[in-house]
């Protein structure tokens, strides 16, 4: 990536689509604390380059390594892009959000209870099908997501071609091809994060099309009840699915009335509740 001046002069409108210009709008804030306008979560399968993306955006040097399971806890950092401050949370790599291992719980709890404004799912372009399992689960929880199709350089070497536009149409969220190790695709990723963070509503996000027939009626009834009780809940169907699956964590959140808090939460109240979710994670 080219040099990144800290205070770039304001360029003409035409520049706004140029990589160099967009990269120049990035200020890496490292561990800077303070108020943030948006919270961005980084999720993804193990060893897809989440920490590399994290480091590239925050200027921090989380240790990266070519082996799965390297990030065992959450790492947090910040960056500022076009005068907005973003807090970036690097979640442990997981293959799914369904089972009850510690790292999956940390990731799931943060997505569900931390309510990030944007969730960037980093996927390995060379193993798209398996990575999509997690992407689809994330999309069930939140539509405010961006798919970062990382390791495109490797995919090219392996002779794999990924049609990112087709993928974006199918998933209903922005898809950004990238090679984070070489800084490629990061300006586009920043633009996509900004777009999703500031969008008032999400588009038509992919939801699981084939509801298992065995649970269709139960799922429908429970989802309807949840929607009626918590009209603002963005992921009623997913929560219904988890309840039917006997997820204790979701059940206790429901019984303690935490779901209502999630649905009602105004943006200004974010920091306090955010800290709560953090303690539980």
């Amino acid at each position, binding site marked *: 990536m080219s040099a990144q001046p800290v205070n770039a002069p304001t360029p003409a409108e035409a520049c706004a689509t140029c990589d160099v210009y967009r990269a120049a709008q990035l200020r890496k804030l490292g561990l800077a604390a303070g108020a943030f306008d948006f919270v961005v979560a980084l999720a993804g399968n193990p060893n897809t380059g989440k920490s590399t993306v994290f480091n590239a955006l925050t200027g921090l040097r989380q240790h990266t390594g070519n082996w*799965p399971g390297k990030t065992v806890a959450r790492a947090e950092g910040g960056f500022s892009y076009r005068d907005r401050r973003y807090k970036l949370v690097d979640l442990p790599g997981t293959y799914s959000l369904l089972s009850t291992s510690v790292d999956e719980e940390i990731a799931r709890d943060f997505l569900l209870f931390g309510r990030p404004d944007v969730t960037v799912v980093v996927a390995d372009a060379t193993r798209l099908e398996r990575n999509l399992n997690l992407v689809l689960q994330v999309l069930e929880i939140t539509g405010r997501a961006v798919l970062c199709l990382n390791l495109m350089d490797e995919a090219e070497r392996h*002779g794999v071609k990924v049609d990112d536009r087709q993928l974006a149409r*199918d998933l209903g969220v922005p898809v950004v091809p990238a090679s984070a190790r070489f800084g490629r695709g990061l300006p586009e990723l920043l633009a996509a994060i900004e777009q999703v963070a500031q969008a008032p509503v999400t588009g038509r996000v992919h939801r699981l099309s084939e509801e298992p027939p065995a649970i269709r009626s*139960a799922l429908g*009834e429970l989802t*309807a009840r949840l929607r009626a009780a918590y009209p603002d809940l963005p992921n009623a169907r997913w929560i219904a699915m988890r309840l039917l699956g006997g997820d204790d964590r979701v059940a206790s959140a429901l019984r303690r009335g935490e*779901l209502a808090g999630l649905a009602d939460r105004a943006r200004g109240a974010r920091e306090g509740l955010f800290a709560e979710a953090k303690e539980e994670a």
Partner: protein
Amino acid sequence: MSASPESNAAGVTGGAGEDIFQLSRRLRAGIEGDLHEHLVEALYADAGRIASRAVSRPGRERRATFDATLDRIVTSRVWGFPVMLGLFALIFWLTISGANVPSALLADLLVGRGYPWLQELAVAAGLPAWLRGLTIDGMYLATAWVVSVMLPPMAIFFPLFTLLEDFGYLPRVAFNLDRLFQRAGAHGRQAMSTMMGFGCNAAGVVATRIIDSPRERLIAILTNNFALCNGRWPTQILIATIFIGGLVPAHFAGLFSAAAVTGVALLGVGFTFATAWLLSRTILKGQVSTFSLELPPYRPPRFWRTLYTSLIDRTLFVLWRAVVFALPSGALIWASANLEVGGRSVAEHAITGLDPLGLALGLNGVILLAYVIAIPANEIVIPTVLMLTVLSAKMTGVGGGAGVIFELDSPEEIKRVLTAGGWTVLTGVNLMLFSLLHNPCSTTIYTIYKETRSARWAALAALLPLAIGFAVTALVALVWRALS
């Protein structure tokens, strides 16, 4: 439907939540089959459909076959272990043979020139003798020693290790070791935390978080200390160079010392398995969990980037830690050598007191005292040993007086001092063993306490390796003396 948005006050929603929860329980009871399986099937079907629309493979998979061929070799039952041993021995050899010259240069600069210069400066500034001793003879020299002994080997070892890690070799090592860990009753992922332990045991203990089962995690924590951490590499490398390398002709010395260090590291892995086996059959009985380990593709490491980050993140980080601990320890060493009780210094009293135990273990009182002083950081063991040796042997003509860590800029000179202090090959061998098998440093013990939230497990983690260390060195000394 019962609750409207307006009625979502805390108490009321709790009630609505409870109602919905009860409904979910009733509905759950009516579902046939495993819901989890239904869900996963639906997920896979969707993922497969979407992927097939987006992914095409016009090119042939050249790299994939390269990866597969390499994997067949490095994870094969026959070649896996020899390749692993060969690679690690190569790294140690490069470290040992590459570190000599820069180490000598640094020692010459920091100790040979810097030390007299600072002394003159302090005398000119009119500092009292005790203050000069405490700061320059104690703190400065200890730090200078740590830097010149540790910086060159670490600056070679860590980048090499990180290159292997970046390339993607470590998961293959985990794969090779998995079967052994399973047989020992431990979790296969422990291979990863053990690997981290070779860098730093405190980091290795934190890395055990990737193990879900508490039983297997405790095993991984308790045995992590058997992974030789970088604070102990300089001790191993130096002692191997002096005592083991000296046993063979000069041009084989580097290779032979590297083999000895590899041997000690392997012995540590052996003790990891043995202790895990023992623990899983006594106080930590239970089932072995299964897990899946993904072998990532090999990636060409970015050489300069790796060099830079491993220097900053690992080398300088570890060096800084060593320096932070060397400063107060240097002062402590100087003070213990200069504070006299009943005509003899505190250090001499301690050494005489520890000598019987030390000699029974094939070590000596100096080494044991050094390990007491070096509890905060293994890195300062060697400088402390040298200083105390000179002190207790009442050598003249070496060093600058009591409590002064003196100028020694080559392994030959160090050997001269140690031999004069009564060291033999047995002392060298047992010091290498004891360096592998003793209590973890205080940082690691504290980390274990924080991770397990139990003083008892932390105490066991400290005492278990120490007990093993005493037993092994005593046994080696016994056999050695019987044979010679």
